[in-house]
């Protein structure tokens, strides 16, 4: 555990700042780790090797800059976020040769803070999936067991952080795509509240649900990264114009004493595997022993969340992905003879099966005669789901439940039946419908599979600071997570 790549982001940040570690050494350590682990993991789609080292050497020549909170820290970014001069494929063939001419807002924030982007992380195509098996390029493996999935859709980000390829990654979460892979890979994953982080440059899947956030090895690391990427962006009209608190200060000396933790009955019963139940209950018992008050709460519309989510997400996806037409960017079919066949053939050659399925379903639920029955109906149920959260948060400070019903499943286990795969998202998707912030914290290994288990915490609007504080207090009292057994 003493190797450079194993250190937490906050620790390496301090060593970089004091000059004990150079940016070049930190970057080289991550690139070496990538070279050693990528053959087994396939976590990254692009590696910025020499250019990252050049950047690091230039930074070393200028010397550490204490004003830049991520000075010299190598990070990876999910390939759905635009990176100027670095390919951005969204895990899709349709964007195979796409090189953005601008940075996503959160990427420019990272760069301004001094971070070095060393790689773009693999993902389910256009973030549609829960296992990273839907990538058009490769299937990422879980660093804890390479026969299992890392989760998805930010599976490349989760695997790269867990394996020490970088000190943090930015993932995106439309229905659990930060929290579920974080849980499967034994790392911290934070979905900020909707609007806390700008979506500019995040290639849209479900625009009313998408949110970018940190994936890190510790809670303090997540706080540090959120500090950098949060805040208003005049170019995203849905980004919230509210002050950003000092998240690192918020977690200093955090305590669980008197904190009311609400346990929704719908998250702790049927469908939950015994090992996840045991690990999560152990963490809740620990919280109680540290002074938290455990409060029963109810989220009565949970059973409707998956249907609601997939109707809305697919509707938004079918509209958002209409932009891929072979005209301005992306793949154009060489077999086209006229404009109409150019559109259809480019899209069919470029999109994978799950993306086509979701576009078709989204088109159907938005079409005349079905709009009210599906799309409008789902938007109404969405309000009921949000109200459930607000009611529960009237009785407690944070809501707490498992991140996923099981630990990481085997590669290929859920690919035959798309609906079965959707059902694995049961504990994560309601939060996106509500727009509230939440995170997954690793709480141990499942006693049956030996795979990581994540506990979720949900908070009220703009309450990322108390959310991080509670997670930090729990983390400080949990046994340290071992490093994954990847060589």
């Amino acid at each position, binding site marked *: 555990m003493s190797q450079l790549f194993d250190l937490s982001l906050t620790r390496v940040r301090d060593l970089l700042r004091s000059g004990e570690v150079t940016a070049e050494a930190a970057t080289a350590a991550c690139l070496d780790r990538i070279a050693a682990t990528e053959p087994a993991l396939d976590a990254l789609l692009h590696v910025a090797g020499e250019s990252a080292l050049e950047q690091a050497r230039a930074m070393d020549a200028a010397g550490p800059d204490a004003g830049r909170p991520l000075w010299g820290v190598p990070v990876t970014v999910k390939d759905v976020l635009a990176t100027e001069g670095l390919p951005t494929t969204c895990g899709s063939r349709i964007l195979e*040769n*796409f*090189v953005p*001419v*601008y940075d996503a807002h959160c990427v420019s924030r990272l760069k301004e803070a001094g971070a070095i982007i060393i790689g773009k992380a693999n993902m389910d195509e256009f973030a549609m999936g829960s296992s990273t098996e839907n990538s058009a390029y490769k299937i990422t493996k879980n660093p804890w067991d390479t026969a299992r999935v890392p989760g998805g859709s930010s599976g490349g980000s989760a695997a790269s952080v867990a394996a020490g390829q970088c000190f943090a990654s930015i993932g995106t979460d439309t229905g659990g795509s930060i929290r579920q892979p974080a849980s499967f890979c034994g790392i911290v994953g934070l979905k900020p*509240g*909707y*609007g806390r982080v700008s979506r500019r440059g995040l290639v849209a899947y479900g625009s*009313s649900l998408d949110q970018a956030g940190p994936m890190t090895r510790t809670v303090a690391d997540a706080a540090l990264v959120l500090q950098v990427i949060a805040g208003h962006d*005049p*170019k995203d*009209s849905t980004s919230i*114009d509210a002050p950003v608190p000092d998240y690192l200060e918020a977690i200093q000396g955090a305590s669980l004493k008197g904190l009311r933790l609400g346990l929704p009955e719908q998250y702790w019963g049927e469908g939950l595997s015994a090992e996840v139940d045991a690990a999560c209950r152990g963490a809740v018992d620990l919280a109680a022993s540290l002074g938290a008050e455990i409060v029963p709460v109810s989220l009565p*519309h949970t059973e*409707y969340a*998956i*249907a*609601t989510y*997939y*109707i809305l997400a697919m509707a938004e996806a079918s509209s958002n992905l*209409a932009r891929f*037409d072979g*005209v*301005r*960017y*992306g*793949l*154009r079919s060489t077999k086209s003879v*006229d*404009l109409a*066949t*150019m559109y*259809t*053939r480019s*899209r*069919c050659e470029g*999109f994978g099966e799950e993306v086509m*399925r979701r*576009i*078709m*379903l*989204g*088109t*159907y639920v938005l*079409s005349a005669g079905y709009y009210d029955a*599906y799309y*409008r*109906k*789902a*938007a*109404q*149920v*969405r*309000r*009921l789901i*949000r109200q459930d959260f607000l009611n529960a948060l009237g009785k407690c400070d944070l809501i707490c439940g498992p991140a996923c019903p099981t630990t990481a499943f085997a590669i290929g286990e859920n690919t035959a039946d798309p*609906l079965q795969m*959707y059902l694995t998202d049961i504990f994560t998707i309601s939060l996106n419908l*509500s*727009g509230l912030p939440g995170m997954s914290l690793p709480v141990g290994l499942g006693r049956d599979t030996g795979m990581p288990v994540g506990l979720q915490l949900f908070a009220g609007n703009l309450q990322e600071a108390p959310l991080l504080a509670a997670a930090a207090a729990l983390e400080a009292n949990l046994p340290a997570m071992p490093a994954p057994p990847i060589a």
Partner: protein
Amino acid sequence: MKISPEKALAIATLARLEISPEQAATLGSQMDDILGYMDKLNELDTADVEPMYTPVDQAGALRVDEVSREFSRAQILKNAPETDGQYFIVPRIV
């Protein structure tokens, strides 16, 4: 069955996708399963519930409308499959 293979082909046309008859049968049957599951929402009476299309309360906050040149023509055309250096080129329309 809601989505016959013919219906699936019609939806694909609406979505500007081209699918084979075999794909239409498979996708139609998968869509049937998924839509069948979604019918669960009909258990709820939502007659008096205002639809929620976004979590943001103050959606539509606009910035000042100022003209600025952020990208050059070359940058905008950089990722296009076909250009003449001035415009995006598409198959002949008329």
